């Protein structure tokens, strides 16, 4: 009997484990293999509202594809963030203090993935492993619903609303409906050959509460060479660097 049970048990383990690595992991709908720019830069203002507690920050950012980002916050604190691969450097010039935060996985860039999500109608949801469930056309508004092609791999449902081919909203709910997030794209303006939103509102609703983040962009520029101080950023010698890990 044992001769039969052991191989069956082992086979079951291997068969079950393969889909499990991806099951329950929600795809990042802002992810993209190759962004439609070489460099992107501009000013930002971020306003966060966590259950009525509002805070804001503003500054300037420079990004090279999805590989390198230099972000300088001027309000409410002077802070420089440099993100490259698995290393995030957070530097406070006035306090001569910096954190070098390393991680095994690449750090997610702030703001940029949301800007790219606005181009999702052009890039498509297909490369995220999703399939079109259904779509409705109401005048100039197209509403499409996206799910996983595998019925057993329930990762939730995406709804995209496009007006005149431009995405105005992406809505996502988890299979258990315990978490929902919404991205709203507003103030579309041309940036080079792209048309990008200059206001992005993201709302997350979970059992823990509601978080609303509004990001305003201005003076966005595409494919302009980055300044040398940005590309070759070096910490001054007198800065104390604290190493941290995620």
């Amino acid at each position: 009997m044992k001769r039969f049970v052991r191989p069956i048990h082992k086979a079951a383990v291997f068969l079950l484990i393969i889909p499990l690595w991806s099951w329950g992991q929600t795809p990042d709908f802002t992810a993209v293999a190759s962004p439609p720019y070489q460099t992107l830069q501009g000013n930002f203002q971020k306003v966060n509202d966590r259950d009525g507690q509002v805070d804001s920050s503003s500054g300037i950012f420079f990004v090279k594809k999805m590989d390198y980002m230099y972000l300088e916050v001027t309000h409410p604190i002077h802070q420089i963030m440099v993100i490259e691969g698995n290393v995030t450097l957070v530097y406070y010039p006035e306090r001569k203090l910096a954190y070098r935060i390393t991680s095994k996985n690449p750090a997610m860039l702030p703001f940029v993935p949301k800007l790219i999500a606005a181009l999702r109608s052009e890039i498509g949801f297909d490369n995220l492993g999703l399939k079109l469930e259904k779509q409705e056309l109401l005048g100039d508004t197209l509403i499409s619903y996206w799910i996983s092609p595998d019925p057993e791999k329930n990762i939730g449902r995406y709804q995209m609303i496009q007006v005149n081919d431009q995405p105005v909203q992406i809505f996502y709910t988890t299979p258990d409906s315990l978490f929902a997030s919404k991205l709203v794209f507003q103030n579309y303006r041309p940036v080079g050959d792209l048309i990008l939103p200059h206001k992005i509102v993201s709302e997350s609703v979970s059992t823990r509460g509601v978080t609303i983040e509004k990001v305003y962009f201005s003076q966005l520029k595409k494919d302009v060479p980055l300044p040398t101080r940005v590309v070759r950023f070096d910490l001054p010698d007198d800065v104390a660097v604290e190493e941290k890990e995620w």
Partner: protein
Amino acid sequence: MGKRLGYRVFVGALTLVLALSLLVMPLASDLVAANALPQADAQQACVDAEAQATQDINGTTWFLIGCIIGVWGYIVAIALESNPPSAALVGQSPEYVAAYTDCYKRKAKEIKSKNALYGCLAGTGATCLLYFLLFAAASGAESTY
């Protein structure tokens, strides 16, 4: 005369105390607030980081991984790291950044390892039960012959 002088001294002292309290109290409260700010920042950072980790990491998945691959699931849960949410650090103080990274890492590991461990225990229990039932069935079949 002495009574009048005493009254004047009393009024003068009272005025001085009131004036000083008006001047010193706001300064003192500012000083207290300035010292309390980093601590409040660190506390808020920890609350934010734990909420973000709970949102980012699916406990059910780690339970099932632990259930199926047992102790290996637990080891993987400890070793595997999530994608760090650097956006949360934009415009935050050094105290917030330090506390956020520590709390996020701790909470993420806790969710993964705890669920993988529970899954591991549940899986081991289920396997033991299965073997016990098979053994009982085999023994029963042998005794009938």
